């Protein structure tokens, strides 16, 4: 009887340890950019160049995640990228002249959209559009600009 008891205790401890390891794995190693809001509203924005922005990328304001990107498409008429964002409904007082820029988290990080508050009295709501946008910085363009400017600087 004593034998079975110790076997059962050992097994119980093992299973508990395994379960907690599984729990630790699912909760602690994942979900840095978790965003879940029950109610959201949709906003659109056009960008000249979205770089490597992907759906599910976070939308943040002052460094706090307030929404995420749901769709990135190309508009064949305007010849620009259309980005659809959803924003948590509790943030319903974002001025509608705020500007959206595509930023990179860290040197090797993924890209996200940063919103910078404007000064308007009307607010972003479902279906509104962000007019002031700033494209992603593409390294090749940057290097190109740098070469051109340093070349012209040498002539003077």
């Amino acid at each position: 009887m004593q034998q079975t008891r110790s076997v059962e205790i050992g097994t119980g401890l093992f299973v508990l340890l395994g379960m907690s390891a599984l729990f630790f794995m699912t909760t602690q190693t994942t979900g840095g950019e978790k965003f879940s809001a029950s109610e959201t509203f949709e906003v659109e924005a056009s960008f000249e160049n979205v770089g490597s922005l992907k759906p599910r990328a976070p939308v943040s304001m002052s460094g706090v995640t307030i929404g995420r990107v749901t769709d990135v498409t190309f508009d064949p008429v305007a010849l620009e990228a259309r980005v659809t964002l959803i924003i948590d409904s509790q943030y319903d007082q974002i001025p509608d002249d705020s500007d959206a820029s595509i930023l990179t988290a860290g040197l090797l990080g993924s890209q996200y959209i940063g919103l910078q508050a404007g000064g308007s009295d009307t607010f972003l709501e479902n279906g509104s559009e962000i007019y002031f946008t700033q494209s992603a910085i593409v390294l090749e363009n940057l290097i190109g600009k740098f070469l051109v400017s340093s070349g012209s600087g040498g002539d003077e």
Partner: protein
Amino acid sequence: MKGLLRDIYNNVLEFVRTFGAFQLFFLRIIRHSPRIVLRRPGLVIKQIHNTGALSLVIIMVCGFFVGGVLGLQGYSNLARFNAEDSVGTVVALALIKELGPVITALLFAGRAGTALSSEIGLMKATDQLSAMEMMAVNPVRRVLVPRFLGGVVAMPLLVAIFTCTGLFGAHVVAVDLLSVDVGAFWQQMQLSVDIKDIREGVLKSFVFGIVASLLAVWEGYNAIPTAEGVGRATTRTVVITAISVLILDFMITAVML
């Protein structure tokens, strides 16, 4: 020439027959499983103890050092690009998706699989299985099924424990010894590990658990009932489990990508 062709034909046929017998054996084990779980859960618990709880030491020690070496290698290579903060990402993805399930399965084959097949093989060699049949006890149900189920339950838990001790080992090496920033270590990891990656790892651990336990039980049950036969069955368990685990790992990864 004709003899050679016939030999090849016979060998191929024999291989196909063994493979088919293996599938039927699997179905037989599955068919008996629900009854054992419902009526004699004690037998399964005892086997979870044998295969799982008693493998904890080897799993945790190996996990710690595998994580540690990943941290060390990751750090020294990433430091060339000034990206040593990403060491958490590298270690976590490697452990969760690949090394956790695969190394645990190989260790499981070495620690628990050999024990299972030699135990069953020895039972067969000493006529215990025949004795059971004489007493109208079905040895498949009484001996094989609990051992199989014990392995299937123990494997995913062992993989989770291996992965967590690995992360701990990497944390000790990277954060405590090489002074990577602790916040960067975890944040980079959390940014890049998706729940999809964990699902892949867990799926692998279930598949490997089924394969490793089934092969161990099968080899033991089909061992030639002599001292040499049992020894050979034990060896075959490790060899075949290692090969099938690595092939399956490749296939699952290819499908999940």
